[in-house]
């Protein structure tokens, strides 16, 4: 109820973003049922134009593009979503522990993160993925771990500020363990900046995955995410066939939608910060 009220009061841009995000999620969740054709089946000629039967035409092998885009939505969202969740769990817990424990723990973690960050992410991912098989779990793991370094930095900085507050000291004087201090004292207070970062990180994960697939090291055929779809159909653009543009548009639309929502959440929580106890 509270959420609905908030949405009603949200600016138009945020409402639009929310609507689009909801639509994408719905499509991803129901992909199996709403896709008009089997996404792997060849159902027509190569690069057929848009028609009532094939809403977005067919792709470079004659598969229904609409169905592939819908399946791709699921693949993209699931992989990017799980990678983001992994990077947040990993990054924020490590960041919190580093700032609370301090000393050599902080030193070891921070320097390890520095090393990871010193290598360009895309190149690092390309190297790792050319060694390991490009299966979905490996993709999620690689993307999650690489992205967690960014989250670690933010989480550590936020936790540093909270860690010096008297209530954390009070918990320490009570004899609380590090896990209590991290999850019960610091986490609830660090949630605001982390949640707004979550949206941004998810978008980066989508873009990163698309880039990997475009380069052929992401999701492997016959499955395809949006980046893979662009790759498959990019030659068509030369011949004036728009098949490659549909997945590109989907990437752009999702990016903008999530950004609009993230902006709104950031505004919302920064207004509330310090004045209200709960978000």
């Amino acid at each position, binding site marked *: 109820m509270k959420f609905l009220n908030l949405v009603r009061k949200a600016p138009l841009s945020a409402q639009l973003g929310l609507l689009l995000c909801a639509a994408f999620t719905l499509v991803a969740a129901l992909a199996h049922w709403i896709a008009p054709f089997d996404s792997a089946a060849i159902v027509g000629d190569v690069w057929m134009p848009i028609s009532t039967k094939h809403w977005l035409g067919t792709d470079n092998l004659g598969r229904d593009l609409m169905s592939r885009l819908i399946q791709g939505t699921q693949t993209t969202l699931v992989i990017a979503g799980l990678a983001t969740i992994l990077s947040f769990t990993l990054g924020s817990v490590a960041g919190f522990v580093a700032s609370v424990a301090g000393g050599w723990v902080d030193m070891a973690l921070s320097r390890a993160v520095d090393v990871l960050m010193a290598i360009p992410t895309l190149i690092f991912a390309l190297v790792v993925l050319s060694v390991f098989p490009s299966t979905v779990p490996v993709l999620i793991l690689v993307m999650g771990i690489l992205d967690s370094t960014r989250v670690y930095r933010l989480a550590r900085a936020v936790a540093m500020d909270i860690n010096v507050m*008297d*209530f954390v*000291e*009070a918990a320490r*004087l*009570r004899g609380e363990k590090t896990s209590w201090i991290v999850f019960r004292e610091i986490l609830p*207070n660090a949630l605001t900046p982390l949640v707004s970062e979550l949206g941004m990180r998810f978008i980066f994960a989508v873009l990163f995955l698309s880039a990997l697939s475009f380069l052929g090291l992401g999701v492997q055929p016959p499955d395809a995410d949006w980046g893979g779809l662009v790759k498959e159909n990019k030659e068509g653009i030369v011949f004036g066939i728009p098949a490659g543009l549909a997945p590109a548009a989907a990437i752009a639309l999702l990016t903008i939608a999530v950004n609009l929502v993230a902006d709104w959440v950031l505004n919302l929580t920064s207004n509330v910060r*310090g004045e*209200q*106890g709960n978000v």
Partner: protein
Amino acid sequence: MSEPINRPLLQVRKLHLAVEAHGVTPLHTIVEDVSFDLPKGQVLGLIGESGAGKSTIGLATMGYGRGAVRIVGGSVVLNGKDIATMQSRDLQAIRGCEVAYVAQSAALAFNPSHTLMEQVIESAVLHGRSTRKEAQQRARALFATLRLPDPENFGSKYPHQVSGGQLQRAMTAMALCPQPDLIVFDEPTTALDVTTQMDVLAAIKDAISETHVAALYITHDLAVVAQIADRIMVLRNGKMVELGETEQIIHFPRETYTRDLVTVRSEQHNEKPANGDIILSMQGICASYGGEKTKVLEDVSLELLAGQTLAVVGESGSGKSTLARVLVGLLPPTQGTVQLQGAPLHARLQDRTREELRRLQLIYQMADVAMNPRHRIRDIIGRPLTFYFGMNGQERDRRVQELLDEIELGAGFADRFPAELSGGQKQRVCIARALAAKPEVIICDEVTSALDPLVAGGILKLLLRLQEIEKVSYLFITHDLATVSAIADSIAVMHRGHLVRYGSKSEVLAPPFDDYTKLLFDSVPRMEQGWLESAMAGRTKNVA
């Protein structure tokens, strides 16, 4: 209508200040129906607790409102001009020239990258009141009047090179330099130690009488304002409670609220006889920060008796808060031991057992950062119950309720967040959290310093009552001697890490005094006119 010839310099009539919510009603009123006159050369004291609107009134006389505060009614007439209706361009000509402002925190008000002289003469030169040379000359004269060291060269220093008390005096010089008609002093001595406060107060008083400037003196400390003001206005919740001559306000207050303000600081606690078991003892404690570099405590030995209160008094930098950190194990001492009921405590927090931690609790100065803003009061008080005694569910809820009753807060508070409580209520919850552990000793680190006098008085009474019920001992750290006499059974006076005087309250407060204790006691403002002069005279005699 003919104007009276000797009209006052400042005339405030039915002043109404409010926060504008997007330019439309409803307005949130901050100050209502305040009227007063201030003739040239006089000082009016504005006194009240936080939220009384005293600073807001002070700023309104400069035509300034913090945030969205606006003058919505009444008039503020300075030198025959109504400030309330003035445009910002005209206000600019007046501010810093006809009316000047002295802020509470001089450290924040000075720009760290310019010399003091640049900043002191700035407004005089900008407003074209005098040339640079004249302004500098005047500034040097003011430095001398304000008894700043080496007045000839004082101006060439940067703000970080001088002490807090000197900076506050430099700010007074800055306000006086353009020869304004009115100065607004906003709590100029509140952030200072008592001994420094006395110097600054005397300097300000001299400067006012020498320059014949009119002044509004804003403070929450009635004893301070009694030294400097000709008349006092008592404010509460944005309304005037009482306005009268200083003599009348402090000796014959008409309103109950004023009477409470006058008497709250003179509460006396009857000392308990010094017999009983020693519960906490410190032997030869030495402590330092950064390895051995900065020594902050040297050879401090104290004993706390069961069910009693030991007050540790000192100014900032005396090491009294460091003593608390040593006791709770945050800063292991370089030498000496702490014993709780005869058994030595581990020096490091990490080595202490849960039982040891339970028996020694700490209450912080700032209650609002001592509680996790995302936890409900129920969980804040309930956590020690679960942690130390394994209480859960209904048993825990019942105990939380008992504790809330003990601190005089009702059942409705259990589900609130700290942000929904007032300052005094927050401190009460912190007390309840400490009590929940059923400790033998509670260390109170300046627990009343951040509170208004009446609220602080309530907290002290609560602590004393709880001591009766729970038989708990307090180590009470404070800089405020009025608080000490209201709660202590024995007193330790600290100065620069050393224990200078220690004993039962009656012993410590009775002469003969050592030099520092005498200085400290003499510096506490008394609620009588003329105290400042006699105290200053006493001090110069001592020095001579």
